[in-house]
């Protein structure tokens, strides 16, 4: 759904009847009436601590059973044609369209803040919801990104590619630039509604748009695990669907990120809880074998993307045993940058670029897993911090290659 004009007349009437609202909360993942009632209670409880109590509209999927009620202080309900955003889209679906629908409704209602709770809202505490809402409503933040409880092997694409790349390019140390739960100011919503070129199916540009537009960004501890993707795709599809839009975004924001130097921490609301998990032996043999198979077969393809020095480094990796398998952070950072450049230059079909990156990503996963398997949560965070620093240190390499792709051949 791209335009409110396509909505049914009942829905338009309902929007007109609601008039103005200060806060719009969207819960695209709520499917039943019971879950909706539970969500309403949590949101009401979360908004108790927010001053002044904003007039709220709760946008929920139109398939969910509704029992509007009309108790005082209860958010008004708006059944809306939105699809869940916490899973990989099926063919023809696009989470970015779901976000756009919510933004359209929010804009029509003149809301000052818009919160999208893409995870199961019945698992998020009222306090965590409050941390997501309060900074935008009371402290003039424009974007609040989520912080999930991350086990060491959760959201590896985010940990290994998206977070460090986003940090080095846009200069904001966000833990999860991509997630399912965000809150936006009215200003940022307005910006998101401006006509835009194709950005891929996964909406990963909120943080980059906010950073490049000079908007105020924060992050909130939600105290819930990273949302579980229903029907998780295979690794190469995951790389294509997450990294593709990220590379598109890099191309679009080239004028912005080339000016950014270093990175700064962003305000974090709430304290992270400890994550209990077992340490122990992790078998990375399959990942290492997949990388070796890639090295045996894809050297010609990698040769188009990677400089000779990196290919030599990869050859060295193939000779290592799984238990001592290590891909240095600086080499990994340069690999990601080289693939971003190949994506921009269309050195080959873009699908092929992303497909050829998959065995290398598997190599990084194997290396990371062997390194952190015995580490505690804080040590893992420090390890990821070092990875982010390595991406920052290699950024001049990326900038040089981006500006002079023909001249610069290390």
């Amino acid at each position, binding site marked *: 759904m791209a335009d409110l004009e396509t909505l049914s007349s009942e829905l338009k009437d309902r929007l007109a009847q609601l008039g103005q609202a200060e806060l719009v909360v969207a819960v695209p993942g709520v499917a039943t009436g019971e879950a909706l009632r539970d969500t309403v209670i949590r949101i009401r409880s979360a908004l108790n601590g927010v001053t002044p109590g904003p007039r709220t509209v709760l946008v929920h999927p139109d398939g969910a059973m509704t029992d509007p009620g009309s108790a005082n202080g209860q958010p008004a309900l708006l059944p809306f044609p939105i699809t869940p955003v916490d899973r*990989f889209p099926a063919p023809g679906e696009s989470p970015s369209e779901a976000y756009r629908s919510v933004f359209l409704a929010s804009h029509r209602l003149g809301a000052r803040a818009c919160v999208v709770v893409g995870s199961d809202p019945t698992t998020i505490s009222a306090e965590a919801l409050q941390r997501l809402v309060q900074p935008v409503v009371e402290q003039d933040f424009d974007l609040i990104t989520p912080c999930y409880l991350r086990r060491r*092997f*959760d*959201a*590896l*694409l*985010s940990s290994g590619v998206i977070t460090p790349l986003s940090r080095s390019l846009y200069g904001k140390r966000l833990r999860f630039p991509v997630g399912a739960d965000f809150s936006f100011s009215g200003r940022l919503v307005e910006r998101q509604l401006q006509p835009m070129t194709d950005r891929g199916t996964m909406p990963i540009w909120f943080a980059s748009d906010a950073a490049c537009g000079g908007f105020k960004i924060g992050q909130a501890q939600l105290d819930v695990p*990273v949302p579980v*993707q229903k029907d*998780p*795709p*295979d*690794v*190469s599809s*995951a*790389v294509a669907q*997450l990294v593709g839009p990220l590379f598109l975004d890099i191309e679009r924001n080239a004028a912005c990120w080339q000016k950014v130097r270093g990175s700064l921490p962003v305000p974090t609301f709430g304290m992270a809880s400890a994550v209990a998990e077992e340490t122990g032996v*992790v078998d990375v043999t399959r*990942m290492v*074998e*997949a990388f070796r*198979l*890639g090295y*045996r*077969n*894809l050297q010609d*393809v990698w040769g188009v993307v990677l400089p000779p020095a990196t290919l030599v480094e990869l050859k060295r990796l193939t000779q290592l045993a799984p238990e001592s398998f290590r891909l240095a952070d600086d080499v990994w950072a340069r690999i990601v940058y080289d693939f971003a450049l190949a994506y921009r*230059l*269309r*050195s*080959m*079909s873009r*699908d*092929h670029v992303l*497909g*050829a990156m*998959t*065995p290398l990503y598997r190599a990084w*996963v194997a290396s990371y*897993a062997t390194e952190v398997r015995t580490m505690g949560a804080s040590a893992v965070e420090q390890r990821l911090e070092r990875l982010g620093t390595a991406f920052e240190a290699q950024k001049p390499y990326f900038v040089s290659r981006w500006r002079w792709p023909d001249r610069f051949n290390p």
Partner: protein
Amino acid sequence: MWEQAQQALNDSSDRVIQGLANLLPGIVALLVALALSAAAAWVLALLLRRFLRGIRFDERLEEWGLSGLAEWSPNKSPSLLVTRTVSWLIVLIGFLIGIAAFDASITSEIAMRLFRYLPNVVAAVALFLLGNVFARFLARGVLISAVNHNVHYARLLSLGVKWLVLILAAAMALEHLGIGGRIVELAFGILFGGIVLALALAVGLGSKDLVSRSLERQAEKPAAEEAPEPFRHV
């Protein structure tokens, strides 16, 4: 008797010399036409090369996904391929003009035949080039996809796809050129039929054990892959 022979010799010498004298302007005209067309070709090639470099023709072709063309070009530069094609065409036109200096009817006959055949040549070249680009694109796609699905014979699969498409493109191009006629069709049919038959025989007879072992491995694979995977990528 001697006088008659001398007369006949003189006459034949006159005829040859006259013939040569008649031919000489034509030869000179041919050489001049060739020299002028070569000079024109050189100048035009120079201008065209500069223009193509100016519009970054090679890079643009790569951006349009026609990087396969570079591998078939001299020095891997499609610009060079275009300029050389244009300059040789100009030299050919110069040659036809030169031939016309001898006898206009010969030239028009040659030109008519050439022009009648030209669309076939263009179509055949286009078919072969497109087939080549498509074969390389498909081969790379199959290779990457097979590697990402842990197929150990990925390269073999990719090579098979590439050559099948190349053979198909070559057969279509030859058919357009009218070379080989039914032989090409027959050869193509035999080759494809042979491949399919060979595969059928391999599955049915020759590699029965190998195939059954492979199928057993494939059947057992899902159970092995269901082992707990600690990694969550998304």
